């Protein structure tokens, strides 16, 4: 466990006073590696909040170059980075903001080939990817390697977060046993909504990593920003799940 330095105490003193977090929670966070895939509208602000909280290491997984249509929500990016790799803009933003954390970038998306190795290097995975094929890969690997997964999603003015802890909760495949045929890569959303949902996901992850209570296991946290209503849906494990069920 990474012991806190006086400098750490100076940076994080406001959150060290949070009941249930304290120095012990900060040390756990400081010792943890979080993988975020991808670092767009959800993953970007989520990674930013983890950096602010003093996570030990971030692994940012996202392929491709920045496009104009990314800039309404991908707040780790900037207009000057158009047509260059998203991961480099993200690394620059995060390291400028907090040079005391480690940031590793992987300029590709989750694939069958890299999924196992990527998840192996993380203590927790934040799923912010737009394609269900990638989300299912992360879910399968997290279940296989018993790593917690915070599943984040958004659409229009709404979003949802599902904390998944293998052995304690169901998994993403319990909920969605197949790729939804109508889901489209391009969908409507306002950047403020993605940042809001991202920060719910970041908080659930911080609670898990630091040992705080109140993690919403076996629940979906659903937020509707059109009415500012939050609902929690009790989820059930699927006993016949092909990923986390008995085989």
């Amino acid at each position, binding site marked *: 466990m990474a012991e806190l330095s006086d400098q750490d105490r100076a940076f994080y003193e406001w959150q060290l006073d949070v009941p249930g977090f304290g120095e012990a929670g900060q040390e756990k966070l400081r010792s943890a590696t979080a993988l975020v895939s991808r670092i767009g509208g959800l993953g970007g602000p989520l990674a930013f909040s983890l950096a602010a909280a003093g996570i030990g290491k971030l692994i940012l997984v996202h392929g491709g170059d920045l496009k104009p249509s990314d800039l309404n929500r991908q707040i780790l990016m900037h207009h000057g980075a158009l047509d260059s790799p998203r991961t480099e803009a993200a690394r620059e933003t995060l390291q400028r903001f907090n040079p005391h954390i480690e940031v590793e970038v992987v300029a590709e998306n989750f694939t069958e080939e890299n999924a196992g190795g990527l998840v192996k290097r993380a203590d927790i995975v934040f799923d912010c990817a737009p394609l269900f094929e990638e989300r299912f890969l992360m879910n399968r690997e997290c279940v296989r390697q018993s790593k917690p997964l915070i599943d984040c999603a958004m659409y229009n003015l709404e979003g949802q977060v599902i904390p998944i802890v293998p052995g304690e909760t169901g998994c993403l495949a319990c909920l969605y046993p197949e790729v939804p045929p109508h889901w489209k890569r391009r969908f409507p959303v306002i950047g403020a909504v993605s940042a809001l949902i991202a920060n719910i996901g970041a908080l659930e992850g911080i609670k898990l990593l630091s040992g705080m209570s109140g993690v919403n296991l076996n629940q979906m946290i659903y937020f509707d920003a059109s009415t500012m209503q939050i609902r929690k*849906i009790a989820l059930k494990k699927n006993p016949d799940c092909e990923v986390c069920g008995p085989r």
Partner: protein
Amino acid sequence: MKVTFAYTGQLAGAAGTAEEEVELEVGTSLAAALAKLTASYGGKFAELLVDGSGATRSTLLVALNDEQVSGDYDEVTLTDGANLMVMTPIAGG
């Protein structure tokens, strides 16, 4: 009896509303209520709810009074004032 249906994701767009109160006969099952809505809306709403064989899509999440409903929807009897959420999958980006 009256029950409230909330729709999320693509389904809310297809319904043209995020929430509505629906009048149903006492003793109506969840399956029958969904069938009634599917027939009433048709089009994209029906496509999102049921597959080509008429079966409810496996990726649909239905919550009754904020609890996920699993198993056979025919076996779930709705009661007056029930609060349902019908959710289509969403992702990141």
